[in-house]
């Protein structure tokens, strides 16, 4: 039933935009991706598993689209010109004193391996349960837990400045 579908999907759209933009950096590319995702969700709504969580189902569609988009464009998110990306598309309307710290945090996120970044974003920002994250990424729940654990540990090191970033990106600064 179309009404039910709209009622279930509509509240998720802002979160889909946020996840897409966190991965793609570019506002219009991310919104294109979300549009593509919504069209597929509408088209295949009746084919989804009725016992599954629609949120996990839609995030799975979006995640797969994002990964193939990133692969097609021949880059992983870490290769984006971060300064440009954050000044434009990812600029945050945060309180002034938090702004720099958030910027550094988003830089640090970009230095995580892609599989850790995606798990961290889905769990902490998008509030997917561990089981739903496993479903969305099509990986075992144990893998979700180990990636989450490694992501947190690595991010902490990156933010405290005592880890060498895996890429040779020059823009990471310590906030301590």
């Amino acid at each position, binding site marked *: 039933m*179309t009404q039910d*579908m*709209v009622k279930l*999907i*509509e509240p998720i*759209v*802002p*979160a889909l*935009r*946020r996840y897409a*933009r*966190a991965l793609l950096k570019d506002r219009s590319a991310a*919104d294109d991706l*979300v*549009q*593509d*995702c*919504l*069209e*597929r969700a*509408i*088209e*295949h709504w009746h*084919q*989804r*598993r009725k016992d599954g969580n629609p949120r996990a*189902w839609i995030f*799975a*569609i979006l995640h*797969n*689209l994002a990964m*193939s988009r990133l*692969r*097609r464009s021949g880059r992983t998110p870490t290769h984006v010109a971060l300064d440009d990306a954050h000044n434009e598309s*990812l600029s*945050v*309307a*945060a309180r002034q004193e*938090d702004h720099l*710290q*958030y910027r550094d*945090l*988003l830089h640090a*996120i970009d230095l995580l391996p892609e599989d850790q970044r995606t798990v*961290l*974003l889905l*769990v*902490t*920002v998008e509030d997917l*349960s*561990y089981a739903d994250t496993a479903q969305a990424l*099509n990986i075992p729940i144990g893998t979700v*837990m180990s990636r*989450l*654990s490694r992501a*947190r540990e690595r*991010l*902490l090191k990156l*933010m405290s400045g005592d880890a060498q970033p895996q890429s040779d990106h020059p823009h990471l600064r310590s906030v301590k």
Partner: protein
Amino acid sequence: MSTSPITEDDLNAFVDNALDPTRHAEVIIYLDSHPPIASRVAAYRKQREHLRNALAPIAEEPLPPELNLARLVADQHRPRSTPKWAMAAAVLLLSVGGIVGWTLRDMDLRSSTGLELVAQQAANSYRAYAADGYRPVEVRAEDRAVLAQWTARQLGRTVAIPDLTVSGFRFMGGRVVPTDQGPAAMFMYDDDKGIRLVMLARPMWADSDLPMSPYSNSEINGYAWFDDGLGYSLVGPVEAARLHPTADEVRRQLRNSV
């Protein structure tokens, strides 16, 4: 009362407020007596909060019109019938392509080059049609019989439409596509996550049967084989480990259909 040992998973679930109240309390007691771990967990909590705050504004932006769900629904439910004249014109063009292609058919070498060519043509169809969010297939799954007639007429022989439900892929529909060697049948499938596969089949006049061989081009993997005078290829952005059994299933069904 003895409790089971605190795990790294418990600590993460504690950070995410995902523990049941009993375990949550146990973790608090544990952290009280382990200050270094407590400070790491506190840092994780802060990290979590900052990450949410940093990205929250994106979700608060007003939605652009193209993400209006009601409008997207309305767009998709609009009838997509093709005028008869357009269908006729397409068939005519394909016939012309077929005649031109006829003279080029012996370009199918009796070698693996022919296999690769079929896989390439399938990959080209994938790129052109699978990425099309609006109209990936000309004839949709519900008009399977129409599609079967159309491809049979254009290819000069019947190509069965495999059912890939057991491999997790649904049949979406298909069309006739042009190749240098004449018209080919293109069938499209997708899974729950929107990943699409393209199967291509066309007559191979110069080749005898050839076993299945893998193909890979950037993000697209594929398998191609020749069976009973037809060249087949199944391609998609799927790892070979998943695609291979699916291609085996296609071949098995096509052999049984003869």
